[in-house]
């Protein structure tokens, strides 16, 4: 009955109660959204970052090297020769070294020249249909690419130059899908994988090049051995080498010896991602502060709504007291009201946050190549709700107290 009374009081004032609920909802929504994005980003990034201990590429930005070659979201850096990395593949602390060569895309999905170990050992992905590539221009498609572009075993396509927008088509070279991978939830789902030779064959004008930077000097140098098919040799170029250690000691020796080489640079995904998050953190902090301000407004709104309501209701409260309601009961009924408003607001916020997250996940997918979900709930959200209810209760303390201490006789006399 007391609860019914509180609920009715809220319903009777839909505008002011609605405002409180809405403000609280929006603030919790922002918190949920920021929290959810950050944790999914972190878990996705870390999952993938841990797959690769070290990325070796050309000199430049370490973060770009990692973003491009591990997460496939940034532009490729320069190229490196197969020769220059041979010492890494033979290094005693290296258990796995996978070269990749970037440069082309098919409808914005990257075509990655690599070796079978990229699929089997690095991502441990299984072939769902068809088989692994063996020859140049054969392609194994990640599950999302296959699904999005409706690719089947036997489908053919021509790639376009560049990793994002199409610059020009390589019309003469037709890729053929020979296999499709099972869904892994990782970045490999978004990739078209082909032997390194494909990339060299598609770019005959500079067959050593995986991607860009056509230098006249190198063109001239390799003009004389132009074959129909190019097999891996020391002079061919790749974009980067993905390295896994077999010993923690690798971490202390390998990056140093790589960075000593004039044309090479080593970047550790774990460290770069850490730095990336440190870069993003201030933006998230601002968002969080904003949501706290809105949350504060919501609490002020609860406070003012209840305080006004107490003024409007002082006669009925005095009447309830005369009819036998203890001051404690009146106090509790006001607290109930704030609890209900906070509960509605915070639940609304969680629902809004997840709905928006789900709506935005498409955007996130195209920006970061990761599957985000609006339906991943975190235990901490329960704490958000609990915390809101608690703070809502605190903002109701004074209004509740003002109702608690109403002097029955004085109040009724004034009426």
């Amino acid at each position, binding site marked *: 009955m007391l609860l019914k*009374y509180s609920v*009715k009081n809220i319903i009777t004032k839909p505008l002011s109660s609605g405002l409180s609920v809405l403000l609280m909802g929006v603030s919790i929504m922002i918190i949920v959204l920021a929290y959810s994005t950050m944790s999914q980003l972190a878990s996705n990034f870390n999952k993938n970052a841990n797959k690769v201990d070290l990325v070796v590429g050309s000199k430049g930005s370490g973060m770009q090297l990692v973003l491009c070659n591990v997460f496939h979201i940034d532009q490729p850096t320069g190229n490196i020769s197969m020769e220059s990395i041979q010492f890494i593949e033979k290094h005693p602390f290296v258990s796995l070294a996978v070269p990749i060569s970037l440069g082309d895309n098919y409808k914005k999905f990257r075509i990655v020249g690599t070796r079978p170990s990229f699929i089997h050992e690095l991502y441990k992905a299984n072939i769902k249909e068809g088989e692994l590539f063996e020859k140049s221009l054969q392609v194994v498609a990640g599950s999302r690419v296959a699904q999005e572009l409706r690719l089947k075993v036997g489908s053919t396509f021509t790639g376009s130059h560049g990793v994002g927008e199409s610059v020009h088509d390589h019309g003469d070279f037709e890729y053929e899908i020979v296999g499709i991978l099972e869904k892994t939830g990782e970045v490999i789902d978004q990739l078209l994988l082909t032997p390194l030779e494909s990339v060299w064959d598609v770019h005959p004008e500079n067959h050593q090049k995986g991607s860009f930077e056509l230098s006249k000097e190198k063109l001239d140098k390799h003009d004389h051995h132009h074959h129909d098919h190019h097999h891996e040799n020391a002079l061919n170029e790749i974009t980067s080498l993905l390295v896994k250690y077999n010993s923690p000691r690798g971490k202390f020796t390998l990056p140093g010896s790589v960075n000593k080489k004039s044309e090479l640079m080593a970047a550790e995904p774990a460290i770069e991602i850490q730095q990336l998050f440190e870069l993003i953190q201030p933006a998230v902090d601002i968002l969080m502060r904003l949501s706290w301000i809105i949350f504060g407004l919501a609490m002020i709104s609860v406070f003012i709504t209840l305080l006004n309501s107490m003024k409007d209701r002082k006669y009925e409260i005095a009447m309830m007291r005369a009819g*036998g309601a203890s001051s404690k009961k009146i106090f509790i009924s006001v607290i109930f009201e704030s609890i209900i408003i906070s509960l509605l607001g915070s639940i609304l916020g969680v629902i809004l946050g997840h709905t928006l997250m789900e709506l935005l996940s498409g955007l996130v997918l195209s920006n970061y190549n990761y599957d985000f979900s609006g339906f991943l709930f975190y235990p901490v959200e329960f704490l958000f709700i609990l915390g809101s209810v608690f703070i809502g209760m605190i903002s109701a303390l004074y209004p509740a107290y003002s109702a608690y201490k109403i002097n029955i006789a004085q109040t*009724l006399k004034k009426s």
Partner: protein
Amino acid sequence: MLQTNDLNIKYDDRLISYPNIDLKIAEQLLITGRSGSGKTSLLNALGGLQKPNEGDVIIENINIYGLTQRVLDQFRGKNIGFVFQRPHFINSLDVISNLKFSQYLVKNKDEQLIHTLLDKVGLIDRKKARIHELSEGEKQRVSIVRSVVNTPKLILADEPTSALDDQSCEIILDIIKSFSKENNAKLIIVTHDQRLKNKFDEKLDLDALKV
């Protein structure tokens, strides 16, 4: 029974001394006086709403100001029904919920009684009405029903008819008097409404008192 002993109540910096009252079951008393004579203060003291500066109020052999506030609240809810000049209700609840709420406060669940009483005052059809939809006369009838939903031993009415026209005044007075008789409840009405003067046998005129 209801007894007062040497009640003294401070009112506008004056200390008003009241004569002792002694009321048996189902007795009805009219207390009159012009405004400022301390009628309402007396009623508040009798109803346990405001502790008098001196003296005791004894209802059913209990000195009510000797009780703790919580026990007094419950005692009031169970034993005393109030009717005020301007009836106030819980505006967010409809008529019947208001009456049920009064019963809920003392853990009474006699919904049948509510229906019977509403029927008697001719408002059974209005039980789902919101308070603001009622006329002043209807509100006062509901407030009288409310004062007896917990079958109190004492009904205290403060100017119950002053805001009403002659016809409503008549109806309200009849209802209050009959409810008090049917429930064996003592009734005390304080008023300056001259229309009630000849309707009661027991009368107390505060204007005749010396301050």
